[in-house]
């Protein structure tokens, strides 16, 4: 880690970006690759069990690793950049960040409700919420790219 190119803050940012990558990529892989294959290849009973297990494992990973890492690194980056609550309303960086945080909260809510709907045996609702969470995450990434890189 010698040299000036990679310092502490680059590592923090790396963790933040990687976390987002894994979360969005994991959702995409699950819903576009794994689950469709499972639906096609597994028997009805196995299929449901597999989907439930895969979902639960991804959910636990989200709650135990992804969420703490994103919140921790995100908070650290914001602190490093001198972001205040008030500045979240100001045009430019602040407002983009504010909107991104709001959308992230919505995505997390959708993800949590997905788990709830699944547990309550509401497959249609669960599916809609899963898709909403995935598309919303892409929206978060879109807003993240809109943050001026300074």
């Amino acid at each position, binding site marked *: 880690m010698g040299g000036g190119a990679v310092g502490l803050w680059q590592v923090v940012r790396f963790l933040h970006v990687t976390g987002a990558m894994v979360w969005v990529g994991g959702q995409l892989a699950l819903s576009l690759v794994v689950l469709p294959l499972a639906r096609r290849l597994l028997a009805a009973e196995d299929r449901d069990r597999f989907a439930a297990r895969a979902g639960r494992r991804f959910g636990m990973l989200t709650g135990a690793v992804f969420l703490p890492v994103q919140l921790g690194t995100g908070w650290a980056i914001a602190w490093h950049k001198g972001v205040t609550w008030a*500045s979240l*309303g100001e045009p430019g960086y602040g407002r983009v960040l504010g909107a991104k945080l*709001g*959308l992230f909260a919505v995505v997390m809510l959708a993800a949590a409700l997905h788990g709830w709907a699944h547990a309550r045996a509401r497959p*249609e609702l*669960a*599916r809609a919420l899963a898709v909403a969470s*995935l598309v919303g995450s892409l929206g978060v990434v879109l807003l993240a790219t*809109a943050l001026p890189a300074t």
Partner: protein
Amino acid sequence: MSGAEHTPRPDGRRRLPLLQQPAGPPGDGGPGGSGGSAGRSGRAARQDMRSRQVRAHLLVAGWAGLALLAAAAPDTLPVARWLAVHLLLLGAATTAIVVWSEHFAVAMLHAPVPDRRWSTARLAGVNVSVAGVLLAVWAGPPALIAAACAALAVAVTAHLVVLVRLGRGALGGRLAPVVAYYRAAAVALAAGVVAGGTLATGSAGAAGHTALRLAHVHVTLLGWIGLPVLGTLFMLWPTVLGVRMHARTTPTARRVLALTGGGLTVAVTGLAGPAVLPGPGAAVAWRAATVAGLAAYAAGVAVAVRLWAATVRRGRKAVSVAAAWSLAASAGWLTAGVVHDLVLFATRSPAAAQDGVESLVPLFLLGFVAQVLIGALTYLLPVVTAVGPKARAGSRAVLERAWQARLAALNLAVALLVLPLPGPAATLGVVLAAGAAVAFLGLVVTVLGRRAGAVVTPRAPVLIGTAAAAVATALAVLVAGGGAGGGTTTASGAGTGGAATGTRTVAVSLHDMRVSPSRIEVPRGTALRLKVTNRDAQRHDLRIEDGPTTSLLSDGQTRTLDLGTLTGDRKGWCTVPGHRAAGMTLDIAATGTADGGGRTAAQGAEGHDGHSATASEGSGPDLSADFSAGWHSRDAALAPAAGATVHRIGLHVRQRTVEVAPGVRQRMWTFGGIAPGPTLRGKVGDVFEVTLVNDDTTMGHGVDFHAGALSPDAPMRTLEPGERLVYRFRAERAGAWLYHCSTASMLQHMGNGMYGAVIIDPPGLDEVDREYLLVSSELYLGTPGSAAQVEKMRADTPDAWVFNGVAAQYAKAPLRVRAGERVRFWVVAAGPSDGVAFHVVGTVFDTVYKEGAYVLRPGDGAGGSGGSQVLDLAVAQGGFAETEFPAAGHYPFVDHDMRHAEAGAHGVVEVR
């Protein structure tokens, strides 16, 4: 089944036509049937009809959900308010009306079911063109709006044609007149679309805008939505209550349509009339027509309500108590709204009534439209989507969950929003209404979702999820890139402080379909803020391309937009549909660079409305910004001398942080907590006994009164912190005198605020109506005594020149005088380095007194014709000038050294 209407069931209740399932034409298998055999027509047709209903109601729920989303972002989303209203009315309500009016028309006319594919095509046409209208208005190009409106008009006409053709050769029934309501409504929507399109494309122009807008609002709300609701209620109300229709229903329905439809035609003609034939003479006739038409409409509603009330009295336990209450409440709000509307137009001019009509919007949207949708769907959704009495009861139970709480919340919300209550009440209303609406939408989706297995394809959740997230993302992107809510912009402007270099605030007003100035030129790199004020009876906002947007502003409201540092040209416009096209645009041009003195004029080519005196410099405080809330100007009025001949004054030296320019706070060294210090006034021969106390714990101070003659050694010595002395002098000579701190460096002590005035009246001073005292001085920002600040003092490059200590304060809080009054302005030049050339624009001084002598008195000069334009005072000199203000108006006063005037030494005398 078709004859069931006349056949009482065993329990004595009548089966009403809306319960019919469209199982083909009467006597199945007749010509025009769905083509299948009699065997197929039963279950398959019913199943098909159910899935169509479910899909249609998913559409309704979708529109309503989008309306809620748009309503949730009133300040951020462009045209959000317009969008919310139209998503609900043009999206949700229109879809529901098209679906149900066709369904009921078939049932009530006992007509054959129209071809399903064409029905679907018409509904799709209406929905696609509605979406087109919404998107086109959002995007803005007039051609697109016109095309979308035309498409919608075509779709509505197709709907009308079907309604008319259904009536031909149909058997008809007792309720056939209700179909006439639907036809009238379709005509009203077509008219509303034409009026709306004209408005949104900006073709109406400024003059016709108000008239056409009122016509549009009335013809759509009372016509397209009001008429079908009234008509349907004749049948739905007894059905929901589970009682027979009143015997007078058919003739009453005819009469009510004549009254409401005819009245609305007259009223809308009267409202739109001024757009075609303006003028005060015609206006009286138009207004009379409006009032007469609205009165007829109100009478029609009253007749209908009386019939429904009579129905209730004969009632028993309702089929759906929840639906009945919602329908009753919505009818109540409709009645209240129409009556209030009538009163508004009867007592005010249309332009003045417009604001009142605006305030009725929540009443109509939530109280009437949303509630009638809730009531009707609570009853109808189980009927059309559930199979069998058990499933129907189950669906109804879901839709009626917590109905009392929802009903109470929604109606309380409407009351809170409509009544003139303080802000928090309205906020509570919005929260309650949103809660009730979201709750009902959730129940609707639950009921529709129950049929998911049979109807909704497996793709539906994917589509719904994608759509929901896409909407959320779009909202987030809009919030990120777009508008500024009033609160946040104001907050972001608060941190400007003394470092406001390169910030410019330009006042922008919105009126007569114009943004004024329509062009602003500022040097590239300037941080630009726009203080946007609506000066129009109708509401406007201002959106800056790639920048913030104000909320919709009512007449007189002001918002500040922070555009940040300007790097290139920008455009701005009003987002109210049609206003941009009508010319409400603003060009912001970034010129050259901010260098080269940075004193390029801020005003654009159209900055003609008298801002010249307020144009600020490139550096220094931003003078056109607002002072903080709670700021008060220093009273410039000068009280007459007290009667006593000995004046005892306590003078405490203190440091104070005060607002010295708009939004700029500065630590000052003061006599008595204010700069300039307290004013002393007396007559020649009076004795002043001043007890000076140095409460400043950080440094020594003293005082020097120019008005008295004495040996300086003792009284003018420096007092260390905590010390005091009594400074006693007799005012032997008249004049406007300076007093100031006598401790070195006097440049710094005076430059930081330690100066004041002593006024000793000359013997025989004439009485005048008003006397003001203006002490001129320089203002140096920064930490008092710091190298940077002292350097500015040495170089005589102050941050502002001020009267009575605060830059531009009398521009914000003018001196108020009545026309014809004689006013004396006492002026003392405190410096520390610059004198003053005091001038009042629009007046001539007939009396000037300077340094103990009259320079000019009335009657001086050749033939008594002498006048004076400026009271010129070198540093530390004083005097007065007198003038009379001939007529009402705004008379700026300035230090006629224009560097000083433009950098704070200006104010206004407001003569009334």
